[in-house]
């Protein structure tokens, strides 16, 4: 590294190795205590919180699913009335998509990406703290409303006019729409942080072709978030405007259009699926390496598939509207794009199988989840090809076939890799290993329970059972399969319970993990488990795609960073050459205040448009506090 001409502060090169870690810890540590916990900007602490919260929402969403399965086990069941059932299925969808699936993927990235690219903290750490608080507030808004019988009841897609001013009575749809604003705000914030972290904070030497596939996946995902989420924020905001101040975005009589909602919603909604799936694909590509004991086959193909899938995902949205009455030729353009996306998906599957083919698999729990993922995701992908066809879709659209399809894609394609991820990175998160025995049991229960629950839904859909019905009549031939599905769901739930038991037990009394328990090749394993507050004592220098395999004994490191204040290396975008040392912000309580002020403004604005005016004053105050200059000059050397 270039040695700067003048030294203005204490540098890591000036002090002995033993003192170095102590000095860094003092600079980077999060103070203990309540306020310290609230003010932290450490990406690892926030990431852990994010993951934990997302799994709480997963459990809550699972309870809703169980309620629906009890209701549907019998024809004309009276456990839930239509009003409650509609709230429950809406909550299940909205909760799983907005409060679990997207946040948990970003949460894992918040924890892992800075470690995988070898830096000390995520870019914009205070924004990161803010994003967590906003996410938490959005989740609590939705669940509090539900607990008080005012949960949204218009579906997670909230089609107008049903969710519009005339047919969506009360504030239920507004709560849905504002919950969107909360979660999208937090998702956008994390996306921006990840893009900057990946572009500018990679360890020296980590050129584009040495970025771990998971990091690539998160880069693509972040761009998807940045481009897709504004569409839904526009949609939900205009819905609230229609409902609160009487605008006419969706009123055909005054020149609005109800299909405008569907276009806006699905322009976000389809990329959303890939926002959930691409990180999972990245996790698989990264996890498969230590368990196949060879590099993932076809790095270029895997990265190309991620990027191409990401772009193509913006040209699929009309396949959710094939029966809305658009010209068939226009629909068919979307069939073409939807079909084309099967090719990058296929490339990834073939590369993973080739990796296993050529490797020597180690059958630990994460690999089991990867195998379960491939088995189920291929089914989900193939049924995806089916619904991409306009004529096929006219029969299965809005039926249980589609319910089966997207649960195969989202549970098989994203939750399986995620559970593998938790088993795999658990030692890095907590410093302890998860129990292998319980892991295997939970895998088999989840795998069998999942397939027994969701596969029969394909058949139910073809037999004519529509989605979103709170009950069905006894003279329809769906009873047997529905009962079977509900019973199978018990196995699935047992598997998840076992997983949670495993997590809690292992976190408290699991075997203590070494730094690199799986002999994995990526940088996060180059530091301790769990990592210290400063991540790496010295920033590693990367010479290959698998630094820990090619440099097994000692990783070369970069030096020259100050130890007496938070500093990290900024590198060039494409070639990751060191450019500058940059300061990383201190802990601050202001992101929390800003989040509270924003929460008040957003919830208030459900009731009065003036909230936007008066509510922005505290937000502005909080932002001023947040950005108040602290008098530490930039160290430009």
């Amino acid at each position, binding site marked *: 590294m270039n040695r700067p001409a003048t030294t203005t502060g204490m540098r890591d090169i000036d002090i002995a190795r033993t003192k170095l870690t102590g000095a860094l810890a003092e600079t980077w540590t999060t103070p203990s205590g309540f306020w310290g916990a609230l003010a932290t900007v450490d990406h690892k602490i926030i990431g852990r919180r994010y993951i934990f919260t997302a799994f709480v929402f997963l459990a809550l969403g699972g309870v809703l699913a169980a309620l629906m399965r009890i209701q549907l086990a019998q024809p004309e069941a009276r456990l839930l009335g239509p009003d409650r059932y509609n709230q429950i299925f809406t909550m299940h969808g909205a909760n799983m998509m907005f409060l679990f699936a997207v946040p948990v993927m970003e949460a894992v990235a918040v924890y892992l990406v800075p470690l995988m690219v070898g830096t000390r903290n995520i870019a914009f750490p205070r924004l990161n703290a803010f994003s967590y608080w906003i996410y938490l507030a959005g989740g609590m808004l939705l669940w509090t409303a539900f607990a008080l019988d005012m949960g949204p009841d218009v579906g997670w897609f909230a089609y107008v006019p049903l969710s519009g001013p005339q047919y969506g009575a009360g504030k239920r749809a507004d709560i849905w729409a504002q919950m969107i604003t909360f979660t999208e705000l937090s998702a956008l914030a994390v996306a921006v942080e990840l893009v900057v972290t990946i572009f500018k904070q990679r360890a020296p030497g980590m*050129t*584009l*072709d040495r970025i771990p596939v998971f990091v690539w996946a998160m880069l693509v995902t972040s761009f998807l978030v940045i481009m897709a989420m504004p569409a839904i924020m526009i949609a939900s905001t205009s819905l609230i405007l229609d409902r609160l101040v009487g605008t006419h975005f969706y009123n055909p009589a005054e020149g609005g259009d109800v299909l405008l909602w569907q276009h806006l919603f699905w322009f976000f909604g389809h990329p959303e699926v890939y926002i959930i799936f691409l990180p999972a694909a990245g996790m698989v590509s990264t996890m498969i390496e230590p368990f196949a004991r060879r590099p993932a086959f076809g790095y*270029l*193909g895997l*990265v*190309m598939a991620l*990027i*191409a899938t990401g*772009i*193509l995902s*913006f*040209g699929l949205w009309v396949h959710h509207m094939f029966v809305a*009455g*658009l*010209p*068939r*030729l*226009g629909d*068919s*353009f*979307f*069939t*073409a*794009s939807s*079909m*084309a996306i099967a*090719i*990058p998906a296929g490339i990834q599957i073939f590369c993973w199988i080739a990796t296993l083919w050529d490797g020597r698999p180690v059958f630990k729990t994460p690999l089991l989840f990867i195998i379960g993922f491939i088995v189920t995701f291929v089914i989900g992908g193939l049924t995806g090809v089916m619904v991409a066809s306009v004529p096929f879709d006219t029969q299965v659209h809005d039926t249980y076939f589609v319910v089966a399809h997207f649960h195969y894609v989202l549970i098989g394609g994203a939750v399986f890799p995620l559970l593998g991820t938790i088993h795999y990175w658990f030692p890095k998160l907590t410093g302890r290993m998860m129990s292998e025995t319980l892991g295997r049991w939970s895998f088999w229960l989840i795998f069998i329970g999942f397939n027994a629950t969701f596969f029969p839904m394909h058949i139910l859909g073809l037999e004519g059972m529509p989605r979103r019905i709170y009950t069905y009549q006894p003279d329809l031939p769906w009873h047997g399969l529905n009962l079977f599905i509900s019973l199978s769901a018990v196995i699935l739930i047992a598997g998840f319970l076992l997983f949670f038991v495993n997590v809690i037990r292992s976190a408290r009394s699991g075997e203590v993990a070494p730094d690199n328990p799986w002999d994995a090749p990526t940088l996060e394993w180059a530091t301790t488990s769990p990592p210290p507050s400063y991540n790496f004592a010295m920033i590693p220098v990367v010479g290959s795609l698998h630094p820990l395999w090619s440099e097994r004994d000692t990783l070369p490191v970069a030096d020259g960073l100050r130890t007496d204040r938070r500093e990290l290396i900024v590198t060039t975008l*494409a*070639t990751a050459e060191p450019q500058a040392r940059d300061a990383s912000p201190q802990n601050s309580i202001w992101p929390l205040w800003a989040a509270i002020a924003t929460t008040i403004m957003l919830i208030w604005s459900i009731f009065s448009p003036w909230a936007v005016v008066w509510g922005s004053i505290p937000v502005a105050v909080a932002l001023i506090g947040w950005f108040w200059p602290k008098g530490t000059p930039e160290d430009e050397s």
Partner: protein
Amino acid sequence: MSASKLFTHLSIWVGLWFAPLVWAANMQLGQVLPYADCRSQLHLSAATSFIGAAFTIASSFASWLSSRRVIGGSGEHRSNADFGGTVSALSATLFTFALLMQGVAAMVLTGCEK
């Protein structure tokens, strides 16, 4: 960044920025042109799709060729050029496939079907 360096960068990655643009534009035209196709008994959307496919395949070649040129030279960042050129060329090929299928759709359907 000098102009020639910028040009090199853009041309290596052309398959990844130009091809999606062409494809996205064609998706939009697919919502507009069917009405014209139906009225005039033409195959405008087929024409735009196939012309678009020609553009994307050309951008695929352009990416490939310019990355090979950089690799053949003696400059730095040859691995990045290899990576960028290959990823771009492959992606552009994928968009070509999508556009060709859209062209086929416009040949099979008239635009009047609702």
